[in-house]
């Protein structure tokens, strides 16, 4: 049997550094010195940034995930399913965690998790099939695309795909079927496997060694080419994946074997730490298990078990990332095709609904924040379901703009139009300037949301020169206030905002070499 030829692969790999020349706008950066384009390239040429997608299949019941503990309407709507206030884990004065979400609670308190409330899209679809497709293809509900947002983004990262396949897979799904999210316009940019060892063992590493005859010019020929692409990808990537897995054979935490999500994330952690240059990972709690039409369970039962699995798995994963030294490179989000209805149904369950909270996690998120209001149980849509506050594409936009440093025209190509990216992820900083945890803790912005003015509060451990800047979501600096030399202790700065249009901004406080950043909402 002859050896298969591997024709010249893309030796450049696909590093984000190659995108440098196409950057348009200035980014928000936690930098003091004037940034040069080269420094910026070095920072966001940080091609080892990874995004982890966690799919909750079936439609997660947001109202029983983050409970509006002071809202009587919640308790009225859910006589058997409502979580009693005193059983929830404290979150805010009006919100409580479901008690199973100890993992998320700990991450949130630690600044490694944030919540985005009331996420959906206009005219939401309540079908699993369409709903999931919409979230994966990032379209409006009346638009049908057969490419996914991640696939389209990766095509901008790998412009000569599929003529040249990147050395390592750009996207990986731990599982057995390949998500629509990884499908591009020119082919499939992701691969799927259960685990690195069995993947490698399965693939015939030698192959036929023949060159392919031309496929016939028929629909059969089209399908033949598709199968051939999969055959080639299997060979190429099983080797790359095995190499990475061999470099990192262990994890630094113990993932319970009865938690399938944890087992998937365990593999992801190894591959990232082993140096695989894959940018997106998709793991899921599958089987439509969140589709709790019957006997959903309040304190015990199906939904609480799923939440426990989710919270525990993500906590372990992020702790493992710390142990493996990769925590700064990894962020992610949860998503689900829809939330569920406010009122419970007659079977101790809930039917398909609309808006729900989603979670972003990681060391480098703007952590410990809740974007959006508590769910509004008074103003509902015509079916009695929750109204939208944020479009899910605002989260995708944040991932692309802030985390991957994509330029605006890439965003347009991927999401088809502009969305106001939510302030979720830390944009790359220089090595001289890190967000100072204590300063972040002490930084207050009140009122927030505001309309006329707001007061920044802070605490300095030692005297420093203080500057306050306000940036828009695209990174442009709009206001600089040079506060001057300040003594140690508490301080405040009043910022007039009457010139500002409604929207979301960043406030950044610089104190000597330390900096801290918070989101600022202006409402008119």
């Amino acid at each position, binding site marked *: 049997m002859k050896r298969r030829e591997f024709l010249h692969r893309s030796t450049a790999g696909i590093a984000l550094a190659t995108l440098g020349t196409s950057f348009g706008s200035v980014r928000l950066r936690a930098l003091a010195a004037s940034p040069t384009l080269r420094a910026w390239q070095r920072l966001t040429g940080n091609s080892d940034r990874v995004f982890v997608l966690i799919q909750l299949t079936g439609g997660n019941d947001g109202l029983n995930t983050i409970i509006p503990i002071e809202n009587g309407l919640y308790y009225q709507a859910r006589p058997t399913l409502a979580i009693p206030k005193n059983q929830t884990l404290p979150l805010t004065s009006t919100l409580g965690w479901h008690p199973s979400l100890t993992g998320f609670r700990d991450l949130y308190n630690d600044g490694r998790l944030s919540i985005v409330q009331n996420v959906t899209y206009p005219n939401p679809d309540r079908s699993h*099939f369409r709903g999931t497709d919409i979230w994966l293809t990032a379209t409006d509900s009346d638009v049908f695309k057969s490419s996914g947002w991640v696939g389209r983004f990766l095509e901008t990262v790998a412009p000569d795909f599929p003529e040249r396949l990147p050395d390592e897979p750009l996207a990986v799904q731990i599982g057995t079927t390949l998500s629509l999210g990884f499908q591009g*316009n020119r082919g499939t940019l992701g691969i799927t496997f259960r685990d690195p060892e069995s993947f490698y063992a399965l693939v015939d590493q030698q192959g036929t060694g023949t060159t392919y*005859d031309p496929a016939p010019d028929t629909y059969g020929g089209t399908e033949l080419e598709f199968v051939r692409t999969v055959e080639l990808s299997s060979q190429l990537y099983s080797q790359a994946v095995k190499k990475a897995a061999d470099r990192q054979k262990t994890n630094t935490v113990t993932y319970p074997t009865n938690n399938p999500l944890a087992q998937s994330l365990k593999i992801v952690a190894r591959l990232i730490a082993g140096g695989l240059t894959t940018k997106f990972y998709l793991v899921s709690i599958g089987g439509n298990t969140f589709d709790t039409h019957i006997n959903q369970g309040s304190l015990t039962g199906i939904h609480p078990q799923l939440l426990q699995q989710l919270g525990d798995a993500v906590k372990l994963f992020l702790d493992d990332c710390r142990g493996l030294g990769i925590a700064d490179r990894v962020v992610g989000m949860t998503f689900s095709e829809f939330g569920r209805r406010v009122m419970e149904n007659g079977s101790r369950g809930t039917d398909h609904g609309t808006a729900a909270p989603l979670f972003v996690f990681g060391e480098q998120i703007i952590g410990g924040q809740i974007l959006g209001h508590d769910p509004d149980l008074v103003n509902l849509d015509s079916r009695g379901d929750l109204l939208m506050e944020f479009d899910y594409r605002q989260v995708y936009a944040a991932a692309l703009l802030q985390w991957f440093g994509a330029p605006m025209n890439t965003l347009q190509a991927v999401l088809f139009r502009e969305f106001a990216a939510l302030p979720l992820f830390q944009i790359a900083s220089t090595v001289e300037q890190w967000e100072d945890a204590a300063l972040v803790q002490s930084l207050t912005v009140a009122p927030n949301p505001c309309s006329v003015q707001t007061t920044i509060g802070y605490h300095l451990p030692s005297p420093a020169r203080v500057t306050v800047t306000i940036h828009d979501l695209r990174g442009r600096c709009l206001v600089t206030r040079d506060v001057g030399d300040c003594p140690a202790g508490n301080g405040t700065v009043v910022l007039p905002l009457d010139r500002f249009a409604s929207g979301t901004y960043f406030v950044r406080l610089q104190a000597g070499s330390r900096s801290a950043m918070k989101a600022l909402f202006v409402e008119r």
Partner: protein
Amino acid sequence: MNRRDFLWRLVSNPPTTPLGITTGLDPYKPDQLLSPDDALHLLRRATLGVSRQDLARAQQMTTRQAVQALFSGNQTPSPPPWATIDPTTENFPSPDARQQEYYRRYAELQQWWLRRMITEGGFSILEKLVFFWHNHYCSDYLKVYYPQYMYLQNQTFRQMAWGNVRELARAMVADPAMLIYLDNVASIKGNPNENFARELLELFTLGVGHYTEHDIVEAARALTGWRIQGMRGVFNQQLWDPGVKDFLGRRGTFNADDIIAIIFEQDQAARFIATKIYRTFVYDVPNPDIVEQLAQLLKANNYELRPMLETLLMSEHFFDPAFRGALIKSPIEFMVGLCRQLSFAELPLDYGIERMARLTLELLNPPTVEGWKGHHLWINTNTYPLRERIAEYFADGKRNDNYQNFPTPPDVRQFAASFSSNAVAREFVSDVARFLLAIPPGPNAEAYLLDELLLGAPEYEWSLSMPNVELRLRSLLKAIFTLPEYQLL
């Protein structure tokens, strides 16, 4: 031509309108004997695998005769022993004991069905249609729980396989497995459960965009009142919402019968099924003109499926060369196909079920209520290499999970002897490849296959009586099974 030197076409996004396809539903050579290629195409698409005997038989028939012969098969097979026992009359020492026995029965039911596919799936469209309906009216054994009900549903599909589509939909309203799976068994007036109503409209009859959310709510009200008694679904008037409903533009105190009747008054109901049939038997991208004609045929025949299917399978469009090899084998067509192609009935059934599950198709356990979407989703970096390994071991008469031998291996010698060209290596290889592959191999692939048959021996020495001929035959089979072409129908 080097594998990468040509530009890859948009393999995942073929043109949405079939360009240059002019063939329609007129009969294709209806009263002429089938050529080998045409016979293979028909049987590959309409059955779960073609044996040498099937091909020989088909070549004695006209297109019309062959198509009609497909509508055969045992529609009332003997059930597993427990399948007719009313579950409410069964006692078990504990819930655990019941669950264990039920798991055992489910494994038995899966294997029962697989055995039918392998041994009785020849020259018959029956089991292909049974799976088609299982993939349409989805239920899974984990939620349904009672094995008798999953058997009953499977049997309904078998009896109504090519029967009346509207009556089948009505039967699903009362089907115990479906009542449990989509929660209609718990739906009650005053607090209807929308799950079944939604999927009935979205997935089973009309499809997204042809009804409103309000229609779902109203249909759910009309569909209240169904419960399970023993082995049947029964309607309990007391639990039914008797009020007036607005459904698809009609108004009345509707019940389940009315809902089904109104749905099937819509042309879209015929179009929806016609589209699925097209995508199952012709190509994944539906041809709107053909689908429209099929839909009208279906309606004209009062929703009897057989006349529409016969017309399609006898048509010039179906036999158009553009569609040869344009479908991707599901794990069923892959596993059962291997068995049927080599006339091999000794596949360990537990192995067959488990391997198909690894290829993402576990019988009686669809991934979601949408079923297996199939086509490109069957083939990815996880499943493609596994298919290759399963087939390679199969050629050697072995399982590829524990590497144990099958009770007997596939009889490759008898398989080879059935080819009249078996004395001439080059012709033999070509004929075997054309039998096993929906797209014939090109010159490079044929050269490679010849090498794999000869294994270094000179071509003129080839004969079925040469030493180590079985080794050589298995080597050829493995080489064919691991060509990408092998995954196509």
